[in-house]
């Protein structure tokens, strides 16, 4: 196997109050792979995500992005390589116009001039929002904001795309439109979600996190077809859904 896009080894993280949030996490994601990170509230999913770009630092163990360890001296490059799309687009979109917001990331990483314009245009085109470049994020619908938030990260040209709860607060059409965009992207992707059908649609592989540990790792369809595993970790398919094992 080539160098994994993401390698987490023996990762342990304690909060300052001593509470252990992550315990011996081992995880490798190959380039181009799409992996869903599943787990109940409080399982440590967001804590793990914040370890990936060095916002939080492990108490022990290590994280590597395409072979580059997450350390203070590499933070800038790590943050370019790992793009995080946060759950609430209102937290992500803070500039007066869509185009400026999309330009914010690449400009921080030193992209300027015509190349910056091209990045902004390409990222907005990738999420079908090129026609809204000059608008204020305030005037967009929930689904549009979500896609623009995705574009702000795509414009940084990340090697790993981490998306926190992509389908939350979206109506069914917006949810489907976002899925179509995500499937088209063809990038290494780690998707944190409660939305199990969404995980099945988008990610061939899933990792279940509970109480700070990886408790399952395998093909999404197999994991979701195991009702005992799901109920043990407070996961549940929507009412009326069952999956045949595959």
């Amino acid at each position, binding site marked *: 196997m080539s160098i994994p896009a993401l390698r987490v080894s023996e990762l342990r993280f304690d909060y300052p109050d001593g509470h252990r949030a992550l315990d011996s996490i081992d995880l490798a994601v190959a380039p181009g792979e799409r992996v869903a990170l599943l787990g109940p509230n409080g399982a440590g999913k967001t804590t793990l995500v914040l370890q990936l770009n060095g*916002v939080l630092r492990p108490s022990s163990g290590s994280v590597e992005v395409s072979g580059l360890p997450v350390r203070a001296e590499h933070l*800038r490059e790590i943050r*370019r390589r*790992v793009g995080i799309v*946060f759950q609430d687009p209102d*937290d*992500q*979109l*803070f500039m007066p116009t869509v185009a400026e917001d999309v330009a914010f990331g690449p400009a*921080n990483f030193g992209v300027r001039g015509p190349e910056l314009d091209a990045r902004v245009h390409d990222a907005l085109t990738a999420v079908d929002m090129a026609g809204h470049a000059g608008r204020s994020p305030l005037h967009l619908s929930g689904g549009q904001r979500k896609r623009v938030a995705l574009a702000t990260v795509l414009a940084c040209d990340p090697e790993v795309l981490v998306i926190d709860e992509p389908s939350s607060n979206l109506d069914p059409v917006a949810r489907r439109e976002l899925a179509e965009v995500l499937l088209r992207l063809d990038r290494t992707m780690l998707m944190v979600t409660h939305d199990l059908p969404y995980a099945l649609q988008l990610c061939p592989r899933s990792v279940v996190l509970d109480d700070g540990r990886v408790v399952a790792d395998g093909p999404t369809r197999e994991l979701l077809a195991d009702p005992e595993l799901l109920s043990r970790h407070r996961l549940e398919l929507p009412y009326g859904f069952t999956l045949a094992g595959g």
Partner: protein
Amino acid sequence: MGAGHAHPLHLPGTSPVHRLSPQVKVLAAFMVVFCVVATPRAAFATYGGYLVLLAAVWVIAAIPPGWIGRRALIELPFVVLAVLLPFAQGGERVDVAGLSLSADGLLDGWNIIIKGTLGVLTSLTLAATTSPRDLLLGLQRLRIPATITTIATLMLRYVEVIIGEARRMRIARVSRGHDPRLLWQAGATARSVGRLFLRSYERGERVHLAMVARGFTGAMPALDERPVPRLEWTLGMLPVAVALALVVGAWATA
């Protein structure tokens, strides 16, 4: 949400005034106000000159005087003090319509009202012809410290989000029988304000986190650094030249 979110102080347009670079307009407005403030209080004709100057800008920018007039009413609370001065101040008295007033107080009151009004009218003219985000861009290009422009940028973006949050919290309270007019229910309103503060504070943390994740290290990248054509500076400084001539003239004849 759709269109119709225009800022109440901005009148979108395509006039030459609208098209000027924001930093030119900000500087011009600042200098005109400076001239107004430096004018001696008894130079009545000079103040008329400033008004004519502003009116000329309104004509070019196609701003209806009524539009400006309605928004200038914001000044009214500040006028009260100025109106009291002729009654309260001592010194030489004059009779106006049967009232004995202080001559010095009259002049002081006039001084406050006319300078305040011209200041408000100039600011409104700037706001009407420059969108809020252009104003920020102008300040940024005038090398205003980045911390200030960053805070202003974030404020511009989040003030509506926070107002929306406050509105939803109010509706949720009112739906459960809360009547904010009743004094003994003020506690709930106060707690809501506290809650709103906490929520905004937490949002601030999340926004910062999202910025850091995109490589933010404390300085906003300058995105647009096109130089302003000399013609724009010349056009923008025309009203300043007129104001300067007015104030110099006023001092020369005083």
